[in-house]
């Protein structure tokens, strides 16, 4: 297995594009993600159409500014204006916005009373509630799953070139080959990602939401899962591996709340979301960020571990069957 | 026979390597020229230049009256290339593969059907024409690879190691196919490592080494250069006391190779030195158990000319 592992590292050094991706571009993207997560965006802008208010309301969640003409709907779609408020003939405030009824009512209250309702939380507040660390790890989760498959590229390559068959006919067996591939993918994913996080912490003085030690552990969990998934998908599929993985990764990460918290009354969606391993992971990271312990999330941890094991077992089983049939 | 391909003083360099070095030869219609050479001799480079995908550094190439510099498109229409690697689409049927590649050479739609049929029958794949190459054996894929090159009935066919890794039946079929194509008047360049193939079908042989032709002629003509060369193989009881230098002192002995208890001596038969060689064996303590002799073959000539040293 040691020989196989060294072989993987030797070979990846020749794939300069993949090296650049893993060691430079991905870490840079993670640094940027951490930077943007930590830096507060400007407050959402509400335009007031009219000159009949001397003191526009001030609040933590919105910036209110006077405007002289009604913005276009496209500007509201782009997010330039969260809402536009004007007064009708009877002195009632009319709020024009793409936001939900709750948000519109809250803005009406802001103008009517000078304050937002006490229990109101805007998008930014909800995002802050999620936690900086959760947001960062949510983004990293998607990137790691996609990148994991890219780093497993030598495995399908070996199969198609015939090298895999050659290795199987040697003293090495399927277990040692896949173990070497697992270890290689894991190290190539984990080390640059963690170093990028450390770099962001010390160079940008970024707020990570966790200690470096805790991040190391949390990253370990998702990297293990991503590695197992990468081996699985590379075993099952013969072609278009990157394309399929990108699609699966984006959709399942969104559904599992990697970017936005999801709460829904829809039973099907809730069940689907809960079944996704990324959801289990996001529950763990969110809980840990807000003072929980790993023991509180035993179920989620076991689920992730078991699913990873299932991926590996299926991979080994498939490879054994296909090798025995002479497909490789 | 009119000269279809005329190559004069062709040169091509890759960084530090002179891949083709002042190469000149001709190929006529209805002729098969076998291109032999160790790895790195310049065969594939020469083929790719003739196929117009690679630009030479200097030299003249005329194919069917068209110059390589000005008549690329016309030349391409006349060529059929069988690349070394299988270049077919695995997901579409054999028939569709052949039809597609043939259609690129300007075959009229009305003739295409018959051309495709002819090509598939020639390579023995007509019964499997509706099947996809991913279901084919290696030999069948190689035959399909050839069918894609000959369907448009080119005047010139260039084959780069078309029989690599296939079974003897498929190989035999391919060689018969090539002989048929020659009968129809095609000029064929056939690159291979297999001496017996060249001996079987080539009218003319070029042995390349380091980018130049080091021997040229029919198989008989090339072997004639070494017609007096004979290789004696002796099975002896022991080689413990054998001194190679003793044998090399015998007039006409060119080379001696000792492996296990087998001694091979390459000698010039004109010197009538067999008795001297046997005497030397006996005086070196070898108990002669058996003996055989072999006149120069294309393989021995090839190894002699190009050397036995391993190539890159």
């Amino acid at each position, binding site marked *: 297995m040691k020989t196989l592992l060294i072989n993987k590292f030797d070979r990846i050094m020749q794939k300069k594009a993949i090296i650049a991706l893993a060691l430079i571009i991905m870490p840079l993207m993670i640094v940027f993600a951490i930077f943007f997560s930590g830096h507060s*965006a400007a*407050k959402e802008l509400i335009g007031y159409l009219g000159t009949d208010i001397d003191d526009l309301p001030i609040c933590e969640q919105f910036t209110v500014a006077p405007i002289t003409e009604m913005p276009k709907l496209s500007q509201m*779609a*782009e997010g330039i204006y969260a809402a536009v408020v004007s007064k009708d003939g009877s002195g009632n405030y009319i709020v024009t916005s793409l936001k*939900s009824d*709750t948000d519109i009512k809250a803005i009406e209250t802001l103008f009517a009373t000078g304050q937002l309702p006490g229990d109101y939380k805007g998008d930014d507040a909800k995002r802050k509630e999620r936690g900086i660390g959760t947001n960062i790890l949510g983004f990293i989760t998607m990137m790691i799953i996609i990148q994991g498959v890219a780093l497993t590229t030598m495995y399908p390559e070996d199969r198609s070139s015939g090298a895999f068959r050659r290795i199987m006919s040697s003293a090495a067996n399927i277990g040692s080959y896949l173990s070497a591939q697992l270890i290689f993918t894991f190290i190539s994913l984990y080390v640059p990602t963690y170093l990028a996080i450390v770099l962001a912490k010390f160079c940008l003085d970024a707020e990570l939401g966790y200690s470096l030690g805790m991040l190391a552990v949390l990253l370990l969990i998702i990297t293990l899962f991503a590695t197992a998934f990468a081996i699985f998908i590379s075993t099952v599929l013969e072609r278009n591996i990157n394309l*399929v993985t990108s699609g699966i990764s984006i959709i399942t990460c969104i559904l599992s709340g990697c970017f936005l918290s999801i709460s829904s009354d829809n039973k099907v969606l809730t069940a689907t979301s809960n079944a996704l391993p990324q959801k289990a992971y996001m529950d763990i990271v969110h809980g840990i960020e807000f003072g929980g312990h790993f023991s509180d999330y035993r179920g989620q941890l076991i689920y992730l571990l078991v699913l990873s094991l299932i991926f590996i077992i299926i991979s080994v089983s498939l490879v054994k069957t296909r090798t025995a049939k002479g497909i490789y | 026979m009119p000269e279809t391909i005329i190559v004069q003083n062709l040169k091509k360099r890759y960084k530090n390597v002179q891949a083709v070095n002042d190469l000149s030869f001709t190929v006529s219609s209805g002729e098969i020229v076998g291109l032999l050479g160790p790895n790195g001799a310049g065969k594939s480079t020469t083929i790719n230049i003739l*196929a117009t995908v690679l630009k030479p550094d200097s030299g003249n190439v005329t194919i069917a009256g068209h110059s390589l510099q000005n008549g690329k498109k016309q030349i*391409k229409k006349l060529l059929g290339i069988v*690349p070394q690697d299988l270049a077919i689409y695995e997901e579409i049927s054999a028939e569709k593969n052949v039809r597609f590649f043939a259609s690129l050479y300007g075959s009229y739609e009305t003739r295409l059907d018959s051309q495709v049929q002819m090509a598939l029958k020639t390579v023995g794949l007509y019964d499997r024409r509706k099947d996809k190459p991913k279901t084919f054996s290696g030999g069948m894929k190689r035959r399909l690879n050839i069918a894609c090159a000959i369907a448009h009935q080119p005047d010139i066919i260039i084959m780069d190691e078309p029989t690599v890794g296939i079974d003897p039946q498929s190989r035999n079929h391919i060689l018969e196919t090539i002989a048929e194509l020659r009968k129809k008047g095609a000029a064929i360049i056939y690159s291979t490592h297999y001496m017996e193939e060249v001996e079987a079908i080539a009218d003319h042989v070029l042995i390349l080494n380091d980018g130049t032709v080091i021997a040229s002629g029919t198989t008989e003509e090339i072997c004639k250069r070494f017609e007096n060369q004979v290789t004696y193989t002796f099975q002896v009881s022991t080689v413990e006391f054998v001194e190679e230098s003793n044998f090399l002192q015998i007039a006409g002995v060119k080379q001696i190779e000792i492996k296990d208890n087998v001694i091979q001596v390459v000698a010039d038969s004109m010197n009538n030195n067999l008795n001297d060689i046997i005497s030397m064996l006996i005086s070196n303590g070898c108990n002669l158990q058996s003996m055989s002799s072999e006149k120069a073959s294309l393989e021995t000539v090839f190894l002699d000319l190009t050397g036995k040293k391993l190539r890159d």
Partner: protein
Amino acid sequence: MNFFKIVKQDFINILHNPALIISNTMIPLILIGVLGFVTKSNFGTMPISAYDYQGVNMLILSVALLVAITTSNAFMEEKVMRGNMRIAYAPVSKLEMVLSKIVSSYVFVSICYGLLVPFCQYILGLNLGGSNFLWFTLLLNIFAFFGCCFGAMFCCIFRSEEQANSIMQIPLFIFIFLGGVLFRIHRLGNVVNMISNISPVKWVAGCSYQIIYDNDRHLLLPVITGLAALSLLCFLVCGLLFKPEEYV
């Protein structure tokens, strides 16, 4: 004439790749559904619902991400690459070889998105501009052409589908991020807003919103011109870098 034969064959090769068909038909719909649902609580129902908004954004994102990968697949995917490169021996110029891959994948994605947009508009009931949906479709179409040229360019640079796809995803994700179609970046500051102007996704998104929501097409011609110019640039790079002799 050869050119159209090659385009036809490339198109057939694409149809033999189910992953490409599913990606360019199902994935946009799934993304619209998923993101629309997930962001439902952030939107009202009028004048733009979450599904309307995500419909526009996810179609743009799908074109941005998937079209380039479709082309690189059509060009140099392992199963078709050897057959594709055999064409170098035929009386076909190298530019025709590259252009055929761009055109075949462009025809394919044009059909996919040409069907998807009216499907979303009239069957799913999303607001994609109503009577203006044809302009939105045209914009997506030109954007798809740029995506095809972009994918071909990366193949010519990296000479392998696997490397091209791996590296290409980075600028694509950067364009998507700066384009604001995954999440709005307008409030991330002036510097980010300035940098975001380099993203073709931003041009297309901004123009799309104006066409669909403001019935304003004044950005259409400049954006199409910009995309056409970028497409030409990508094609020129292909012309310079693509050398058939390196693949035979």
